[in-house]
């Protein structure tokens, strides 16, 4: 060590190939060239790579900030107006360049000390570039943090979506003829004791043009459940329902203590195809009360989450099971101590190892996308994706534990007169079982966590549900899923840690 250091020092003491001034000039033209000619090629190369990378990135940032501009001056002006941080970056890069020149001069003049300053400058330049490229904006993070409030609150406490009560609808109807003809609908009789809705008149015109008002109707209702909200809704002639809007607002109000109300509405704006308006059509207006009956019960979302959570756990389990079965034979092929006997087996070893490394470096999400194409959406695609990844990961871990077995006990058991199978059972198996069990449980743990992720791309399980709710911004429902995932993963994590600790 010390001997080597001394020879290295001696090498540096050799005089520079060029005088200091020339070295500085050369580094000004091509950063690092001066240092290289001053017999410190390693330093020169670092300078060259460092400077050219940061300069290249700077040019790229200028161009991407001012995409439509041409000409050096225009691009520069536009870019610093949009991204003021680029001024600082330019100054830092120029400082870096000047420093490189100074460093070249000093390197040629005398053997340099450790290059702390220049690397500090290089570090600052790259950190600034990273700040700009990564669009770091701490101010935005602080000032707009409130935007997340609703989503976070819903995710954190989603339980209002977890329960529901069965409901009954009270929705008496009134028919409206559109447009009015010579024979409008007759007013229905008011029934005794039953909810009713009466419209006056019973015919009218829709608002056909934007901003135009339709015919005004007076709706009278009675025998509703007192005090409860009522909503005015429509069915068009095709029985498609929509909620009535009066001046942009939904019509929703409580009925009085007698269970009756009277409101004026204007008929809605609807575009009707010309063919449909040739003869009179029957539209329906109705007043809807939603009455909760019975006791609380789990909501559809909660049931789905539980169902898919179970599916998720089983995806992880099946993937682990398939993974073990296939990883076992593979691991023997990937164990160096078993495969180094002949060039052929050694070649197989390298091949298997390479394949395992390649497969392992591709994330399960990517595998899931591939398998979704093959077997379609659903849990099987997820199982396949996780299986492939598990084989690669377990194969490596298993083979490493096979490689690390102690040959001593094998020798000792053979010496007792044991035969081959007895030697394997008593000397080899006891050594590999504990690490195998440990790695397998660990993998199961990972697979459960990953099965959520493969679900995001259609691999079945709760992830599939979660991504749909997030896309619908239904954060309460998504919150239920998040809670279940978190609790399940935590429990399994604890169990697997406990088992591994006891067993190994």
């Amino acid at each position, binding site marked *: 060590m010390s001997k080597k250091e001394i020879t290295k020092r001696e090498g540096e003491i050799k005089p520079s190939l060029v005088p200091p001034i020339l070295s500085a000039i050369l580094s000004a033209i091509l950063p690092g060239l001066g240092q290289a000619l001053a017999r410190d090629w390693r330093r020169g190369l670092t300078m060259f790579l460092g400077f050219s990378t940061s300069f290249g990135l700077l040019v790229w940032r200028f161009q991407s900030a001012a995409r439509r501009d041409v000409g050096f001056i225009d691009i520069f002006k536009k870019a610093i107006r949009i991204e003021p941080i680029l001024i600082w970056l330019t100054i830092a890069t120029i400082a870096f360049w000047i420093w490189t020149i100074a460093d070249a001069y000093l390197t040629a003049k005398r053997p340099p000390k450790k290059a702390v300053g220049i690397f500090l400058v290089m570090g600052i330049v790259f950190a600034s570039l990273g700040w700009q490229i990564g669009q770091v904006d701490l101010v935005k993070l602080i000032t707009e943090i409130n935007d997340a409030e609703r989503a976070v609150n819903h995710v954190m406490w989603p339980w209002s979506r977890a329960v529901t009560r069965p409901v009954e609808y009270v929705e008496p109807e009134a028919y409206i003829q559109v447009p009015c003809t010579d024979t409008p609908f007759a007013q229905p009789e008011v029934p005794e004791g039953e909810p009713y809705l009466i419209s006056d008149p019973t015919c009218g015109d829709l608002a056909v043009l934007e901003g135009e008002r339709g015919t005004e109707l007076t709706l009278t209702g009675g025998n509703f459940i007192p005090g409860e909200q009522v909503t005015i809704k429509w069915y068009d002639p095709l029985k498609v329902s929509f909620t009535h809007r009066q001046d942009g607002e939904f019509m929703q109000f409580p009925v009085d203590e007698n269970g009756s109300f009277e409101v004026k509405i204007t008929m809605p704006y609807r575009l009707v195809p010309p063919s449909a308006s040739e003869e009179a059509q029957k539209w329906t207006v109705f007043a809807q009360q939603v009455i909760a009956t019975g006791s609380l019960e789990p909501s559809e979302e909660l049931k789905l989450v539980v169902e898919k959570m179970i599916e998720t756990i089983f995806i992880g389990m099946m993937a682990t099971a398939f993974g073990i079965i296939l990883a076992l034979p593979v691991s023997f092929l990937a164990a160096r101590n078993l495969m180094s006997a002949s060039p052929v087996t050694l070649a197989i070893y390298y091949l298997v190892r390479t394949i395992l490394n390649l497969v392992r470096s591709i994330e399960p999400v990517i595998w899931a996308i591939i398998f979704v194409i093959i077997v379609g959406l659903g849990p099987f695609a997820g199982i396949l994706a996780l299986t492939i990844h598990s084989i690669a990961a377990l194969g490596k871990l298993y083979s490493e534990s096979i490689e690390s077995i*102690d040959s*001593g*006990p094998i*020798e*000792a*058991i*053979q*010496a*007792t*007169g*044991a*035969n081959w*199978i*007895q030697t394997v*059972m*008593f*000397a080899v198996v*006891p*050594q590999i*079982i*504990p690490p195998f069990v440990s790695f397998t449980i660990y993998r199961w743990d990972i697979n459960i966590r990953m099965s959520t992720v493969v679900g995001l791309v259609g691999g079945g399980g709760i992830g599939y549900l979660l991504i749909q709710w997030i896309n619908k911004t239904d954060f309460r429902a998504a919150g239920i899923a998040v809670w279940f995932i978190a609790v399940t993963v935590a429990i399994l994590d604890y169990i697997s840690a406990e088992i591994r600790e006891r067993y190994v």
Partner: protein
Amino acid sequence: MLEIRNLTKIYDDGTRALNNVSFSVEDGDFLVVIGLSGSGKSTLLRCINRLINPTEGEILWNGVDLAKLEGEDLRNTRRKIGMIFQHFNLVKRSSVMNNVLSGRLGYTPSWKSVLGQFSAKDKQKAWDSLERLNIKDQALKRADELSGGQQQRVGIARALMQEPEMILADEPVASLDPVLAHSILQYLEKLNQEDDMTIICSLHYLDLVQRYATKVIGLKDGEIVYQGSRKDIRAMTDREFKDIYGEEAVRVGGLEGDLSAGGDQS
């Protein structure tokens, strides 16, 4: 009676570990093999029970050439030869009891042993062996929870399960401190004297050799450079010692049972 004739072992890489080694061991001898690391001691011991196959030569034990045995015959002969090791070679994660019972594998049918079924007689025998070596109370612990000296006693108990006529001990005390070394060798001496087992043991400490050996051979570069009786070893000269251990060797001690002075191996 064990008689080694012209034993030679050449490894695949061309190393000549043993070169034309011949000697004989009477039943009931406590033979100690001395020599530097790499002098061929381990190879010699492993050739006797055929953990290593010799290249040439004969190993006559009670008239049978062990070098020619194969398969079932070899395994049946191995049962009669116990072996203990420098690093104990226990299955660390298995219990002490299982390690000891594994000494009985040569007498147990495969299917029974694969299921972990040992006869009640074997189990009783295991308890007896553990009791004899004073580690009965450790029987249910995992082997790696025991100290070095205790692990080596488990190793001896495992060898005893074989009901051996001969015990090969490959530097059984090299991983232990001198006091423990003494106690382990006393167990071997007891087996030698009380049970009439032949012991072939490789050792480094000259003091221990002088204390326990009834017969000594010295190996250097795979060849026998010294043969002597108990009397000879006590009168061993510096010259003879240096022939075996090299010019740099310093003779230490020589006092019977004075273990604190021993242990110089370089």
